[in-house]
């Protein structure tokens, strides 16, 4: 009898499995409790305006959210993050079992899932898809996230067995990544490039038409395995770079959803008749990153002094217009294993001056912060921090560079301070913690060159630890130490800002930033 001690709370899996197999018709009730009721109305085209268009729909290599959130309406991974972003639930998969030595996962698939072209989804497709994604590791794709996978073997049409190289607790979360979405084996006989000109998936929508840089339209997938869904006939994403133009188009009823209204007009949108503005819980964390290779940021007291000197409430009011909460930890409240009791540096001028006195530059120093030009939020943060640091004798010059130039400077270590942030791609902290604290985790600790062996060890242990309680303790300790080290000065957790017309119902954005359009319907 296999030991069902899976990483996820036992109850939920069985409940999820029962629910899905038992009453498919009722649709996925889990997690949509807080949405308005009313019976869904079929039909209509949903128009979503965004600042930039999708650049590619190849989920295995594309890196920008604009492309990801469109493509994941076509192709779905085996598992899906829950609406609260904390757990993973089976989606086109039935469930899975893990062997005692935690090295072999046996995933069973639903037998009623078909691709939009009518072909049934089988284990062969799953094997092909995951292996295709893993291969992209050597061409700059998301493959490096699958490096824990060893072999995939097809047992029968609805069962596939995956061996992992070492006990790897985030495995199921990795399977829920968009990059592991399921495509027909051998791309249905065409070349990869041809396939991605009009990709086929098991998702709620099928390929429509793409006018690059202008609009992308997907149409209803008649063979979607969740019967009766999606309600919409089609979805169109339009490209409207100017935030002000998007807002005015929404007020004019020209579009249904404005992807990212600016915080300054969020409150005015909220009380505009016919408009619903919602701040969805996110896994977004914004912080100041210090380059420990550039003096004096190798001195922990300098970093702590700056962390204490920043008035987070003031930032939230001035930049987010009150829509945010001060950040106390590396992890975001929306992420599993976030510990709200971790005490990170908070705004305290006296402590800041004390820390600076103990540092290698007691009477202050001059430095600079590199930000992306054209990004109003970063410009605002930088200007407020500049005036706050001036109070404790730190003269910080603002260096706005063109976004890619800034990124190049940061990645090549040519910066003092910079403003960065992170959103989770899967309901597991491992991707972010490894990227942030482990120097050879791929990004020299988020390019800060932070190197604390104790923290690195904690992170590796957590990666291997399957017992949730032990894993939680490890992550709490990790959050506490990184907070004290202040290798990043955490600023705030800000929600995702969305605005829709009141005719849009059941539109919900998960903490990972994606949204399930199969539940959305337009009422008159």
């Amino acid at each position, binding site marked *: 009898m296999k030991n069902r001690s899976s990483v996820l709370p036992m109850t939920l899996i069985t409940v999820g499995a029962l629910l899905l197999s038992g009453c498919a018709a009722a649709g996925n009730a889990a997690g949509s409790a807080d949405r308005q009721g009313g019976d869904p109305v079929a039909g209509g085209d949903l128009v979503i305006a965004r600042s930039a268009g999708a650049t590619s729909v190849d989920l295995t290599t594309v890196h920008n959210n604009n492309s990801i959130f469109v493509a994941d309406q076509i192709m779905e991974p085996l598992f899906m993050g829950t609406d609260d972003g904390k757990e993973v639930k089976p989606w086109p998969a039935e469930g899975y079992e893990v062997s005692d030595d935690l090295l072999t996962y046996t995933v069973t698939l639903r037998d009623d899932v078909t691709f939009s072209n009518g072909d049934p989804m089988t284990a062969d497709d799953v094997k092909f898809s995951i292996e295709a994604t893993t291969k992209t590791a050597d061409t*700059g794709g998301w493959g*490096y996230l699958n490096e824990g996978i060893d072999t995939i073997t097809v047992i029968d049409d609805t069962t596939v067995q995956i061996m992992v190289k070492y006990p790897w607790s985030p495995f199921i979360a990795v399977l829920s990544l968009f990059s592991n979405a399921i495509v027909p084996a051998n791309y249905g006989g065409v070349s990869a490039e041809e396939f991605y000109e009009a990709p086929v998936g098991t998702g709620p929508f099928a390929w429509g038409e793409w006018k690059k840089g202008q609009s992308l339209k997907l149409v209803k997938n008649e063979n979607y395995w969740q019967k009766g869904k999606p309600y919409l006939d089609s979805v169109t994403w339009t490209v409207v770079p100017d935030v002000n133009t998007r807002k005015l188009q929404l*007020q*004019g009823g020209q579009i249904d959803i404005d992807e990212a209204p600016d915080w300054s007009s969020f409150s005015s949108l909220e009380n505009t008749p016919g408009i619903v503005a919602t701040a969805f819980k996110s896994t977004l964390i914004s912080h100041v990153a210090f380059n420990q290779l550039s003096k004096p940021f190798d001195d922990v007291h300098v970093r702590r002094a700056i962390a204490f000197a920043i008035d987070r409430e003031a930032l939230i009011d001035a930049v987010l217009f009150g829509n945010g909460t001060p950040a106390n930890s590396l992890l975001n409240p929306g992420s599993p294993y976030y510990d709200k009791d971790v005490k990170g540096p908070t705004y305290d001028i006296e402590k800041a001056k004390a820390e600076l006195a103990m540092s290698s530059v007691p009477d202050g120093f001059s430095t600079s912060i590199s930000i992306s030009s054209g990004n109003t939020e970063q410009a605002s943060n930088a200007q407020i921090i500049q005036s706050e640091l001036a109070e404790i004798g730190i003269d910080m010059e603002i260096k706005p560079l063109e976004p890619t130039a800034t*990124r*190049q400077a940061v990645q090549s270590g040519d910066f003092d301070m910079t403003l960065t942030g992170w959103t989770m791609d899967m309901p597991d902290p491992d991707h972010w913690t490894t990227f942030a604290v482990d120097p050879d985790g*791929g990004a020299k600790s988020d390019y800060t060159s932070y190197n604390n062996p104790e923290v690195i060890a904690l992170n590796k242990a957590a990666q291997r630890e399957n017992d949730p309680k032990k894993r939680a303790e490890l992550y709490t300790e990790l959050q506490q130490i990184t907070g004290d080290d202040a290798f990043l000065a955490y600023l705030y957790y800000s929600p995702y800002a969305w605005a829709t017309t009141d005719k849009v119902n059941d539109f919900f954005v998960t903490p990972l930033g994606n949204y399930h359009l199969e539940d959305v319907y337009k009422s008159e």
Partner: protein
Amino acid sequence: MLQRLSFIPGRLLQAVPVVFGVTLVVFFMAHLLPGDPATAILGDKATPASLEALRVQLGLDQPIWAQYGLFLANLFQGNLGISFSFQRPVAELVFQAIPVTMSLVLFSMVLALAISIPLAAIAASGPNKPRDLLVRFFTLIGQGMPQFWVGIMLILLFAVNLRFFPVGGFGNSPLDNLYYLFLPALTLAISISPVFIRSLRSSTISVLGSDYVATARSKGAAGAPLFRQHVLRNAAIPTVSIIGITLGYLVGGSIVIEKVFAIPGLGSLMLNAIYNRDFPTIQAVTLFVGLFVVIVGILTDIAYTALDPRVNLTGKARA
């Protein structure tokens, strides 16, 4: 007439080094941009390993001369290369954006002429009279207003408050586009009309004061017939070159308007290409704009020759 058009082959030959120069300049300027395409594409979550892998795949690890050689080789075969960010042939992107920008540019040109010709005629009919001073004052104002600021104000007034027009965007049928492109075209028209008005006014004044108009008047011509037969064609000659140059400028200069009005034309394609370090697209768009400017230059000369029999471009070089 044909004999007088024999200057065209010469001009085309002369254009080759120019266009070649444009490709050279744009290629190296693009490569001077800080942050290479890999950094732009992979974004914040890039790891050095993935950056390196992508650079190899995009052929950015080749020496710069080899890359330029490859670019030219492809160019001669009419292949504009593959866009780094869209992973699609660049030609597809450019040919999709060209009609958008062309309809915007031509629409704004028509509006600009519709504004400029009457105003210039009014001003020229009474030099230094109040109406002339008023027209000249407004041309200075028009020239002084930043394009994007005019765009914002027009949106605020017409699109939001009066809801006459949509806020930017682009229709899918030509008729639809007249509705969508009216405000952006008007914005561009306002910014280019001053030069048209000034040129038309000054040439109309000089024509009205000319001896041949006095001759025409001595034959009893006046009002509309005089204007149509004698004044308009002579006054239009100097303005033709301005229209030509403005056309060239508009195609390359409407980036800001396309951003404010969310128009997916060459301008926004170029702006995104710069932000994304999408070299093939940058080169393709610049090449097209360069070619367009050269061709418009030749068309202007043809129009010039057609309008003014005195001009013979084969012989004397135009200063």
